[in-house]
């Protein structure tokens, strides 16, 4: 094919390669190629794993798990916590589930955390993904219960179900029943299950026990349900209490405009 002929002048011979140069060049190209390949692979893996950060709201982490990012970095997905949980609560996410594969979780409606006093799951964890400083189960914050559906909760209908209230391991602290006027009957009370976030452990027993076909009270990850007031915000009555008196001395206290108070001049 490349036979030099009279018509096609043969190109000048290439300068003889400096010994080793070609080899070094090839070596460098090879390294660069491999490094680039490894980099792309790492990036793809990174993107893929970012996808896998998502956790369905019904999946709760065992007690002692910190925020999801820290937990995922720490958990080596060994299943020791699952094995030491004496109840069928914990399971390891299997391949193809929505929970990052191999990580422990539970679904409250299926099997809530039974709040073991000795917290065997935390003791079993070899990596401290479940915080070993958690020694009192009441300090666990696996999620936060919320009365999500006022339209179906029996107590909201003025009935006395109270089941969620009574199964709560921190009854009267994490859930209380708040009495409200029942406008439907006009003369009865409604006892509204009310969750207090500073005490609720998120064990899920209330959700598990709710008598409805589908629970009206749900335990959800805290970050999904807990609101946060801006730092600058001050609640007057709290500040006043802390201060031990009016914040601005000598300020005239105008009458509060409550709905029932007569409006001046008879106008609404």
């Amino acid at each position, binding site marked *: 094919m490349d036979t030099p002929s009279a018509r096609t002048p043969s190109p000048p011979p290439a300068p003889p390669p400096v010994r080793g140069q070609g080899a070094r060049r090839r070596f460098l190209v090879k390294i660069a190629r491999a490094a680039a390949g490894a980099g792309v692979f790492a990036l793809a893996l990174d993107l893929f794993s970012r996808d896998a950060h998502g956790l369905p709201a019904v999946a709760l982490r065992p007690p002692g798990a910190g925020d999801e990012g820290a937990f995922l970095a720490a958990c080596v997905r*060994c299943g020791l916590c699952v094995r030491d949980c004496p109840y069928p609560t914990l399971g390891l996410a299997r391949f193809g589930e929505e929970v990052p594969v*191999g990580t422990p979780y539970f679904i409250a409606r299926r099997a809530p955390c039974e709040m073991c006093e000795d917290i065997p799951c935390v003791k079993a964890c070899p990596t401290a993904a479940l915080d070993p400083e958690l020694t009192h189960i009441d300090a666990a914050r696996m999620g936060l219960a919320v009365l999500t559906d006022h339209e179906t909760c029996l107590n909201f209908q003025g009935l006395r179900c109270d089941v969620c209230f009574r199964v709560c391991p921190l009854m009267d602290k994490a859930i209380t029943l708040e009495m409200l006027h029942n406008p439907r009957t006009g003369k009865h009370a409604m006892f509204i299950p009310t969750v207090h976030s500073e005490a609720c452990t998120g064990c899920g027993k209330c959700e598990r026990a709710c008598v409805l076909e589908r629970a009206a009270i749900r335990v959800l990850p805290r970050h999904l349900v807990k609101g946060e007031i801006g730092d600058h915000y001050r609640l007057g009555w709290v500040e006043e209490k802390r201060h031990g008196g009016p914040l601005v001395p000598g300020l005239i206290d105008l009458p509060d405009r409550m709905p029932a108070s007569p409006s001046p001049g008879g106008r609404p």
Partner: protein
Amino acid sequence: MTAIRARGQYDAPPPRRRPWLRRHKWLLLRRASQFGVIALFLAGPMYGVWIVKGSLISSKTMGVLPLSDPYVALQSLAAGHLLASTTLIGAAIVLGFYMLVGGRAYCAFVCPMNIVTDAARWLSKRLQLPKGWTPPAETRFWLLGATLLAAVFAALPAWELINPVTVLSRSLLFGFGYAWTVVFAIFVFDFLISRRGWCGRLCPMGAFYGVLGAGALLRVAAKERERCDDCMDCFAVCPEPQVIAPALRGTQKDASRRILSGVCTNCGRCIDVCEKEVFAFSWRLAAVRPTGPGVFNTREGAREAGYSHVETTEGRKP
């Protein structure tokens, strides 16, 4: 052919094939070990016999001995989590153990994926399929680096989302889900696309243990390499055949008889298949000398083995 004989050598040729059990000793031991490990883990959840709890990634034996996979622990470290002492101790024990017995002894004697890839290889050989595509030899080490890099980027042990080794071992112990798809994919890859491709070229876990093996004490040695009659059986059976030649042919820098490469899995298959019983387990630091007389292919071989008188069959009638 010219054979060179050393004085005092046995005259009757050895029986053509050694007994079957002898030829499969290490293979059987390996399978027993692989299934035994799984059985040990399963005895707890299935029969309530809690000798070992957890999984291959991290476990507790008899309630006291913690063991952790150092590669997974390293990923977690790379992800920015300072591991608790239990994991560090557990990983150190495993690390120490494999530094002793050869890193990739994990691959040969413990890893459940090995059963899958061995099956794929057996089948593809049986059906005489072509060897297929072979990724460059150092790919696995790049992948190993990449998985650690990904753990840093993603701030979680990213490879553990798909690592077929841990996915399979967890699935065996905690239920499968779709894990069979991953396992099946590796099987198909090794069966149709690249024979020995997964363990030999890609698996970062194998690469990690290969690095550990670089200094491992327990080594296979071509102790009686003078006896080798070039049947190539060991090359055919070895999952990493490139490691054999330097030791068998004496082309290693120090002409050592020991297989020094960390990627040798210490599986012992070469010991099993060699009719001439060339190979044996040995220690990295032990001086390896041949133990008996034999047939030598070269005069030098016989001299090197310490025989001063060599007689040859050259010029003789066979």
